[in-house]
């Protein structure tokens, strides 16, 4: 009887044999898959947490990028020196600058605040309720109660830290505060503000313009917030604001208008450091992952040198043996890569949740498709290559040599 064969082994047959070989070595295969998965998970999770941090920072900055804050003073060294206050004319002049969408003028000062017989000095901020609300209510959010109305002369809205940290007892809506001797009722409590708004909202008490003027016994404007239409114009508008106010006061450096862009520049160094650390982490993760994958793959193929020898001894061509092992390596690498991506995403979520809670900031991991694809690519390339290398080495040995190999 003559058994007729074809020149090529059908792909499906190779696939089935490779699959069978993986399944029969269940423990070994699972370990190899895990070895690859851990490496890929490291890359995916670290990159996703990194991107999450970056986004948490840039997201807030771009959210506030259309705002310009104007103060009557300048920063010398690290300290802010107040040079006076703005006048109504300043506010009107600024309002006339083209490109400005909203403007709010505020007065503020630190005064003594009493709650249930405990006293603390707290900054009180007052302004037009509609304008002020437009700047803070939407981005920060009211947790309890509501925002101020124009005729809430005896009402106040408090920031998160005022409500929770400044006094022994937590302050709620309808509680009474004595601000500089005058009684006020809390009508609303802000949510805890995100990083960029935290300094503006959390430690402050907000009043109507009239109430603040009474309590602070002044009608001086100490802070002007401006929102513009076009981000591109921010720097130009900021300069114009400074010029007009400086002209009004006959001083060169009276007003300081800060765009968020300039703030971004100020913390740009920090940013670059974060970026650098991220790239470094990714590089380390890549190296660690690659070495881990190489190790598991090399070992699992090397220990099968004997089997490769047997296959050759019964007439397998080197190329057939190689393609079988390549198939096996790619299947294992593919599964390892996928498991790694899933583990990585889960780990990233857990890490960002933990870190967010520990640092008291809110940020979520950002899983980018290109990171997942990159992870899969690393798994496939490194996995297949490090499976290919020992398989090729074994398939080039003479069958006798390979069969003897233990």
């Amino acid at each position, binding site marked *: 009887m*003559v058994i007729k064969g*074809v020149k090529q082994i059908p792909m499906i047959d190779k696939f089935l044999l490779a699959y069978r070989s993986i399944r029969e070595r269940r423990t070994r295969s699972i370990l190899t898959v895990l070895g690859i998965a851990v490496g890929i998970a490291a890359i995916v999770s670290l990159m996703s947490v990194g991107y999450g941090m970056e986004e948490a920072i840039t997201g807030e900055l771009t959210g506030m990028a259309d705002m310009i804050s104007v103060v009557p003073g300048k920063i010398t060294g690290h300290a802010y020196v107040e040079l006076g206050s703005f006048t109504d004319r300043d506010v009107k002049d600024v309002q006339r600058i083209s490109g400005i969408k909203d403007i709010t003028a505020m007065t503020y000062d630190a005064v003594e605040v009493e709650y249930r017989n405990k006293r603390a000095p707290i900054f009180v901020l007052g302004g037009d309720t509609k304008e002020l609300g437009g700047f803070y209510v939407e981005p920060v959010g009211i947790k309890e109660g509501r925002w101020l109305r124009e005729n809430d002369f005896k009402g106040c809205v408090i920031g998160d830290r005022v409500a929770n940290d400044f006094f022994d007892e937590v302050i709620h809506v309808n509680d009474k505060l004595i601000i500089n001797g005058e009684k006020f009722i809390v009508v609303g409590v802000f949510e805890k503000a995100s990083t960029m708004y935290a300094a503006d909202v959390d430690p402050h008490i907000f009043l109507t313009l009239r109430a603040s003027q009474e309590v602070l016994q002044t009608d001086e404007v100490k802070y002007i917030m401006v929102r513009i239409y076009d981000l591109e114009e921010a720097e130009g508008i900021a300069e114009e604001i400074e010029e007009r106010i400086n002209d009004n006061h006959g001083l060169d450096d009276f007003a300081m208008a800060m765009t968020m862009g300039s703030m971004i520049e100020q913390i740009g160094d920090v940013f670059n450091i974060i970026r650098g650390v991220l790239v470094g982490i990714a590089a380390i993760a890549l190296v660690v992952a690659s070495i881990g994958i190489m190790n598991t793959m090399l070992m699992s193929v090397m220990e099968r040198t*004997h089997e490769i020898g047997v*296959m050759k001894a019964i007439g397998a061509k080197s190329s057939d043996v190689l393609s079988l092992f390549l198939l096996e390596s790619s299947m294992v690498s593919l599964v390892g890569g996928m498991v790694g991506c899933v583990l990585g995403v889960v780990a990233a979520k857990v890490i960002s949740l933990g870190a967010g809670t520990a640092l008291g900031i809110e940020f979520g991991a950002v899983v980018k498709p290109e990171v997942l694809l990159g992870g899969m690519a690393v798994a496939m390339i490194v996995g297949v290559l490090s499976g290919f290398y020992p398989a090729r080495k074994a398939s080039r040995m003479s069958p006798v040599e390979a069969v003897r190999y233990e």
Partner: protein
Amino acid sequence: MIRTENLTKVYRMGDAEVYALHDVNLEIQEGEFIAIIGPSGSGKSTLLNMIGCLDTPTSGAVFIDGIDTGKLSENGLAEIRRKKIGFIFQQFNLVHTLNALENVALPMFFAGVRREIRLDRAEELLVNVGLGDRMHHKPPEMSGGQQQRVAIARALSNDPEVVIGDEPTGNVDTETGNTILDILEGLNKEGRTVIVVTHDAEIAARAGRTKRMRDGKVLD
């Protein structure tokens, strides 16, 4: 059919050269049953590996059907191993993750035989060696004798003209040894050339011709 010409294999052990084979000239006719005997280290297995195209000589040549195997490519040698020769090892050398049926079908897999055909034939071969009820067992679940019978069935799967056994009864008990010997004798009666290396006087006695080796040389 098979002829060796000044076949020499030298191993290097440090500075010393060890002649595993030294100018071996041997001719084996088609349909012969030849036993090669000799003490350990006399070069018997090395000679078989050369004839079976599992190893390459340092010098000299092996001719199979007039073809100088030293002039063949890697793939050419693989083709000879696949089609012309069935090799039976002392250590069985089965693939442990595959069951008996799949092990027997493996050479046909590499020959590109269709799945149904190769499994049918593998089953037939296993029945012939008396393992019809062990087809779905894996090698570690079988005795040495059973494994060696699977290995014989595997050696026959591409219907080779030459069957080579390297101490085929070396790792099995006497009774199984006899069975294996019967099978080999049967294969020879079917017209196949059977070449066996052995310590076993019984095999030597039943072979058509016996050659003795010592120190890498075939004695007359």
